């Protein structure tokens, strides 16, 4: 304490004290907004196309192979920059903004469906997370792998490290990007096709095993374990 007071009395050290005071003022008064460094992660423009163009209240119809139809209606659509920060000794060092969008649908059969996209933070790519009737998967576009599964039968996730993913739980489910998909009702170019291939022993006939998403349109087809499939009607 005495040495601090001595240095304060030393005129030659006043610029140092002034610097410290200015630094404290700058970092404390503005709260978390005044970080030393800011970075923002945005969607890759191409990946953003997997989010649909629907608005809240929009509906579409899926008809199954026995001619029974259900409608899916968008009931939620939110977009924001997700904020996170790290700090050292009370000083915010890095403020990070991550672009995020979430779209939610409910069907007239009581089924829930959602699509969300989170901008990737290197080394990871943009993260697309899709759920349909309880079966959810995350797809990393840069690594081209299913990185996590969240289902009524269990949860699997790859471990994220500085260098990429590690594999504590092997995930057998796959995603492939198809050039096109033809249904009796329409032809879709560029379709993301998810195949569920984990927890097979626990499935029932009504378990969703395949999901097809068309760019900007969303869900266009699903297949259930019992063989029933539904396709979007136009």
């Amino acid at each position, binding site marked *: 304490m005495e040495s601090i007071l001595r240095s304060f009395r030393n005129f030659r050290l006043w610029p140092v004290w002034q610097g410290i005071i200015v630094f404290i003022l700058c970092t404390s008064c503005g709260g978390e907004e005044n970080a030393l460094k800011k970075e923002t992660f945005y969607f890759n423009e191409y990946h953003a196309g997997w989010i649909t163009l629907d608005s809240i209240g929009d509906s579409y119809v899926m008809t199954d192979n026995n001619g029974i139809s259900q409608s899916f*209606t968008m009931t939620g659509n939110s977009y924001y920059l997700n904020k996170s920060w790290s700090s050292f000794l009370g000083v915010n060092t890095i403020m990070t903004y991550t672009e995020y969008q979430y779209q939610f649908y409910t069907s007239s059969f009581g089924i829930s469906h959602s699509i969300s996209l989170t901008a990737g933070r290197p080394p990871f790519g943009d993260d697309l997370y899709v759920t349909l009737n309880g079966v959810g998967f995350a797809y990393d576009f840069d690594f081209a792998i299913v990185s996590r599964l969240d289902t009524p039968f269990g949860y699997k996730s790859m471990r994220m490290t500085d260098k990429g993913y590690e594999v504590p739980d092997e995930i057998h489910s796959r995603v492939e990007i198809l050039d096109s998909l033809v249904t009796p009702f329409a032809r879709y170019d560029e379709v993301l096709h998810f195949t569920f291939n984990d927890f097979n022993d626990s499935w029932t006939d009504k378990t969703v095993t395949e999901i097809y998403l068309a760019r900007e349109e969303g869900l266009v087809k699903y297949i259930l374990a019992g063989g029933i499939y539904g396709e979007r009607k136009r």
Partner: protein
Amino acid sequence: MEKIGKYLLGIGMWAVLTACPPRCDLITLDFGELSGEVLEMVPYIHGASYGFRHSAGQEVYFLVDRQNSVITDFWEECTQVTYGTDHTIMMPDYPLFDMGFWIYKVDSIHVMHQATIGTSTFILPLTQAYDPGFGKLLDSVKVSGKWFRDVYRVIPLNSAYQTQGEILADTLWFNTDFGILKFTMTGGEYFEILP
């Protein structure tokens, strides 16, 4: 010191006065159990399966889970109500919506019969005492090639909140001998009782 003592006394009195709110006189209402006659108006039996055919030909069977009970509830703060209630859930053997019925006493005289098909809710005007005006009693209706007498044709309560393009049950035909005879969906598809 005396001043502090007065303050503490004041705080103590305030705590005593505010901690115990004035007691209300509990009003107990007992609407009674549902009568057998009222329960039989929904003719589904627990554990049984009931078949329907979709307009495109698919047959779907619904397994019935029916529970009857008397529950005690509170209305506002001081009114305790005991009333009979009966829940029926019909679960399909096909990827489709559930159907269900809820019967309960709204007072000592009136009984509510409510049906749900997916997200559509229908009030069935089965008792003379309670009819909100969503249904009509028809003398006879032909369903699946067979004539049924005394059929209620009912539209749902929530049709006004439907968004364009949604496919929901929009009309229900019901009678007390066979239960659901038919229901149509907004897209034109329908389900009929299996003959």
